[in-house]
């Protein structure tokens, strides 16, 4: 009996991916699908990206935007859907925004930089109404924990952040301002494209990729219904209270994607164009759909 | 009259000065002789009020550090080493003490260094540096001048000229007093009005007299002790 091949996945130690993989490992879903899962925790997304670029990881989780950009620069990455979560738009307590023109002059915090998906979608939607949000609001890019803090101390009116940071704020009584799903539909992107996914190098053995994909799907299916499994994961989640804990579970479950459909891939291509058009100097390049993994 | 009195002094636990008194009459020059390492420089430093670390003044009067009676005089001090600022030219060094360029140039001419005003101290010879230091000291106009072997490292004719200069500007000045440390008996006899000889370390005054009451041979014998 030959030992199973190792599959190395580099994950952020405190991130949602880690929850999923820990469960997979615990239930031996990796062995069942013909590989041995090795989890390498790192402290930041950058570290994970370096890991796959330098060949020290087989899979990492990132968004397809990054994957496609790397591919344009000569990499050969593939994408397995991980989550449909895009991010959250959170409003300060007591604020009332009904349309985009209310946002004029407001202080908007954006996590991660100008490519934050929620922010891009907002801008695209506002642009349709003839408002250039980039010029009309006071933008504050910063690291997500800092922005959460700024929100709590009343230094922001609106916040576009990652969903698990948003979930914490929601648990504290802040409200989501926009449903990004609606915004996307408004932009003609109706198919709920998963933004985050497992990126891997396409030279990886296809059988392993398929095995890994199956294992994640089985894991997700279990986590979608099994509450006991979550209790086991709770220490990893650093949830200060039950509200946050349940918020995080709900968020995870809401993000579980389906297999990629052609429609979703088309939407991704369109979405890419929207982002490109929003740049001050659009590059005019197109998303290469070869990035996305299709069931053979 | 300036009277200096100390009960004793120790540097880093080593006693360097015994109890001693030095008296300088106003307008007069007092020469100080003594073997190498006997404590002359230490004595001058103490007189000048230079705070040294690890100093233990001994005896009474050590607390208030008032060694002078009645009052500490205004003091100018020519150190044993030139102590010029190496990063300033000769002229710049002197202008720090006397801003009037004319005065400085005149004195520099007297020590025959008028051609070296723009030289840095590292680029002149030791004897020249000593002369610059002498000029700097002569630019001050204090009540009491302390000079620590000002004319070593100079050739005989130059030393003689310098001696004349010092005599003219300090010794013959009616209100300026001087305490002059030297190893050269001729110098002492020529410049001094009175003389003290220090014994070996810890220094004490083993002889003190007016200069006209002492002969060269006597002094030489005293130094040999």
């Amino acid at each position, binding site marked *: 009996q030959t030992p199973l091949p190792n599959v190395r996945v580099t994950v952020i130690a405190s991130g949602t991916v880690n929850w999923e993989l820990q469960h997979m490992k615990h239930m031996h879903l990796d062995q069942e699908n013909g590989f041995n899962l090795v989890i390498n925790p790192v402290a930041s997304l950058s570290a994970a990206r370096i890991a796959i670029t330098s060949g020290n990881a087989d899979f990492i989780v990132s968004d397809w935007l990054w994957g496609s950009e790397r591919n344009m620069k000569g990499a050969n990455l593939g994408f397995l859907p991980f989550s449909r979560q895009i991010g959250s738009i959170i409003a300060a307590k007591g604020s009332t925004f009904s349309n985009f023109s209310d946002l004029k002059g407001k202080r908007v915090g954006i996590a991660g930089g100008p490519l934050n998906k929620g922010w891009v979608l907002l801008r695209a939607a506002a642009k349709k109404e003839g408002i250039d949000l980039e010029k009309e609001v006071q933008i504050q890019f910063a690291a997500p924990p800092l922005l959460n803090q*700024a929100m709590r*101390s009343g230094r922001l009116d609106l916040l576009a952040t990652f969903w698990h940071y948003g979930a914490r704020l929601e648990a504290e009584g802040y409200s989501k301002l926009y449903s990004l799903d609606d915004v996307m539909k408004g932009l003609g992107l109706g198919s709920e494209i998963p933004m985050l996914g497992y990126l891997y190098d396409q030279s990886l053995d296809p059988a392993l990729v398929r095995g890994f994909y199956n294992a994640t799907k089985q894991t997700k299916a279990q986590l979608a219904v099994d509450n006991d499994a979550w209790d086991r994961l709770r220490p990893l989640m650093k949830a200060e209270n039950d509200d946050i804990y349940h918020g995080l579970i709900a968020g995870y479950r809401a993000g579980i994607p389906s297999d990629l459909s052609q429609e979703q891939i088309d939407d991704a291509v369109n979405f890419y164009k929207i982002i490109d058009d929003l740049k001050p100097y659009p590059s005019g390049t197109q998303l290469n759909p070869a990035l996305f993994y299709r069931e053979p | 009259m300036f009277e200096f009195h100390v009960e004793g002094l120790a540097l880093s636990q080593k006693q360097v000065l015994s109890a001693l008194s030095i008296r300088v009459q106003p307008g007069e020059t007092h020469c100080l002789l003594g073997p190498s390492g006997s404590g002359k420089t230490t004595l001058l430093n103490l007189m000048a009020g*230079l705070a040294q670390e690890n100093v233990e003044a001994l005896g009474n009067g050590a607390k208030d550090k008032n060694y002078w009676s009645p009052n500490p005089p205004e003091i100018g001090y020519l150190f044993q080493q030139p*102590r010029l600022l190496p*990063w300033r030219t000769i002229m710049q060094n002197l202008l720090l003490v006397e801003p009037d360029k004319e005065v400085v140039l005149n004195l520099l001419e007297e020590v025959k260094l008028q051609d070296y005003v723009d030289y*840095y101290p*590292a680029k002149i010879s030791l004897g020249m540096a000593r002369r610059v230091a002498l000029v700097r000291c002569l630019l001050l106009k204090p009540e009491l001048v302390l000079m620590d072997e000002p004319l070593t490292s100079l050739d005989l004719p130059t030393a003689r000229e310098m001696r004349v200069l010092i005599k003219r500007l300090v010794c013959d000045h009616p209100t300026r007093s001087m305490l002059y440390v030297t190893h050269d008996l001729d110098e002492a006899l020529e410049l001094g009005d009175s003389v003290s000889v220090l014994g070996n370390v810890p220094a004490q005054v083993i002889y003190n007299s007016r200069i006209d009451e002492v002969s060269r041979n006597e002094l030489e014998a005293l130094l040999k002790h």
Partner: protein
Amino acid sequence: MKTGRLSDQFVAFFCLLGGWWLVASFVASPLLPAPLEVFEALSKEFHEQRLIESLLVTLQRVVISFVFAMLLGGIIGVLMGRFRLVNRILDPLLIILLNIPALVIIILLYIWFGLVEVAAVAAVIINKLPNVAVTLREGGRMFDHELEEMSVMYGFSFQQKLWHLWWPQLFPYIMIATRSGLALIWKIVLVVELLGRSDGVGFQLHLAFQSFDVATILAYSLAFISVVQLIEWFILQPLDRRASRWQKGGSNV
């Protein structure tokens, strides 16, 4: 002589460039872009009007932080070097400030004062100040005792001491603090911008970094390095030369 000196540096510069170009064309990977690609990235950033603007913003932060850090750090350092009591009391604080991670200071200041410019600049100053202090403390310790005594005996005024006695002795230490200071401050400004500012080179670098755009990263780095190299050539090296004139090996009379 002067041209010889500069041309020497140019030769060294071009050798470096050549070496880089050789290695890059040998490796031929976008992760090690050739000089040409970097210059393309540079001109792209320039034409899209980001380069100069970011550089100016960052330089402004660098200059303000530099001035304050050098002044405060210098005074504290020299006092610590001169007076044992000051040293003993401030030493633990210095060690703490020196070794507290930049991240921690930046976060705390951002939290307390919000994501404002003052917090950013203050964070940089607090990060750099202990370095200056540690450097100038050694300078203060090495003051020449004999010249100090001389200056007292010859009645130097405070200004005279400052300029003619202390400054020349501190000069090498100030040069160390300046050179490594500029570099350090610029690096901290990058982190500060990365964590909580929306403009400046650090922000642009972060964007480039997110898409692993090494050419752009290098382009911005080179732009700043060029600025520093100009400062080096036209301010620091002339100062160096002026200050070493008096030494035995100096070149002027």
